[in-house]
């Protein structure tokens, strides 16, 4: 009898708090979005599952001694996002960007979304209930970088409490890029602009692809060493792939290693979706500001592309500016699709890949600035 009572006292039903139940629903919602809506499933499925696991009463999976507690160390120490960034680097082809380097400027412009939403977060403090510090605001702004590992890395350094909400927002909006971007892109461009065909790109030599990551690293070292962990690991992965002499390391970095780390990272991020941290009015702010960041970044990229088109000797289709937010390769595909609607013979995909990968560099640079200036 004693046992039965003690067993009843150890059930989830007896111990549930409303917050835990709600966060589990959030977890199931993320699983639904991942599986049924195909929202960045590689990340949102483990994140959603981690949210469920960490909110189970009694089990203590995210508390000291639990699995997610140990895995979270990989985020706290910055190991997981950096290893993922290495794998992403190994998967990235800088060819289109090297063929048309001025598209880098589009990748710079789109980072405006980061700083605009940073400012937005600070402005939200005017509303009672919001009390974002500068660190919080910077971590929220980085959602606008549209780059998962960068967002997680920055949030884990500046605002670990917001990490769950920030990661969820970042990956959700990346999945929503095909919905968020097109109206903005259409509103800011004329039909004539969308019809612009771009010049065939030159071929990029293997040497250039090998030298580029080293050059990128060198510039980072000289100017912005606080971005060196992110850009360094990205450049390492890219170099491993480009140089062709360590093929087996490159393959492992972009397959098994990134897969293992993705499972662990997703679960650990999910473990930050606790009721105390997530069920705050601040979370609504994070979600709203994240969407704004994506929208502003898209607009900034398109407008910059329009300006460049005016002054450039070769035509630039403004649609490819939207790809500057990164969200590789989704944003480039969106640019291609909108371009095809106006001109069925206009394939913008490769042209949009330039600003797209430049956006990854751009947001890593922005992350370095934030990490360096905000103490």
């Amino acid at each position, binding site marked *: 009898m004693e046992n039965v009572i003690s067993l009843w006292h150890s059930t989830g039903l007896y111990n549930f708090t409303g917050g835990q139940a709600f966060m589990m629903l959030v977890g199931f919602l993320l699983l639904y979005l991942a599986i049924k809506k195909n929202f960045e499933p590689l990340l949102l499925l483990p994140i959603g599952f981690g949210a469920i696991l960490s909110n189970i009463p009694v089990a203590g999976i995210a508390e000291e001694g639990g699995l997610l507690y140990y895995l979270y160390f990989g985020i706290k120490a910055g190991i997981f996002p950096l290893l993922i960034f290495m794998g992403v680097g190994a998967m990235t082809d800088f060819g289109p960007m*090297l063929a048309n*380097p*001025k598209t*880098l*400027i589009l*990748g*710079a*412009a789109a*980072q*405006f979304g*980061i*700083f*605009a939403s*940073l*400012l937005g977060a*600070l*402005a939200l*403090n*005017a509303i009672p209930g919001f009390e974002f510090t*500068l660190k919080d*605001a*910077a971590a929220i702004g980085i959602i606008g970088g549209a780059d998962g590992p960068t967002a997680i890395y920055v949030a884990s350094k500046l605002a670990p409490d917001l990490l769950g909400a920030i990661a969820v927002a970042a990956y959700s909006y990346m999945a929503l890029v095909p919905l968020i971007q097109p109206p903005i892109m259409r509103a800011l461009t004329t039909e004539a602009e969308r019809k612009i065909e771009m010049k065939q790109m030159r*071929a990029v*030599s*293997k*040497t*250039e692809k090998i*030298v*580029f990551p080293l*050059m*990128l690293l060198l*510039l980072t070292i000289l*100017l*912005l060493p606080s971005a060196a962990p992110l850009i360094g690991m990205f450049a390492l992965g890219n170099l491993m792939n480009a140089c*062709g*002499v360590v*093929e*087996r390391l490159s*393959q492992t970095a972009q397959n098994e290693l990134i897969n293992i780390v993705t499972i662990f990272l997703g679960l650990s991020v999910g473990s930050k979706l606790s009721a105390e941290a997530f069920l705050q009015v601040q979370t609504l702010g994070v979600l709203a500001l994240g969407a704004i960041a994506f929208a502003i970044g898209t607009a900034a990229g398109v407008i910059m592309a329009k300006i460049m088109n005016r002054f450039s000797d070769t035509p630039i289709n403004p649609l490819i500016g939207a790809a500057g937010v990164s969200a590789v390769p989704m944003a480039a595909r969106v640019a291609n699709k909108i371009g095809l609607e106006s001109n069925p013979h206009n394939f913008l995909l490769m042209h949009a890949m330039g600003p797209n990968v*430049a956006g990854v*560099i*751009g947001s890593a*640079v*922005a992350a370095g*600035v*934030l990490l360096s*200036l*905000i103490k």
Partner: protein
Amino acid sequence: MTELIGSGVELMLVGMGIVFVFLAMLVVAIKTMASLVQRYFPEPPAAAVVVPVTTANKTDKATIAAISAAVHQYRSKN
């Protein structure tokens, strides 16, 4: 509060400045590099890659080819 906003505005100006300066320098660096490479290490677009790749990664290439063949076979079977 206003002070915080001030810091934010400053951060935005400095931040976007750095981002632009950094990527603009990268543009210059890429262009310089491209012209240096094309002058001093010209590669005939067709052959250039074929030769070093086949000597360096011969086995790796073969491995990858074999694996991808196996994968195709597997997929077609399942």
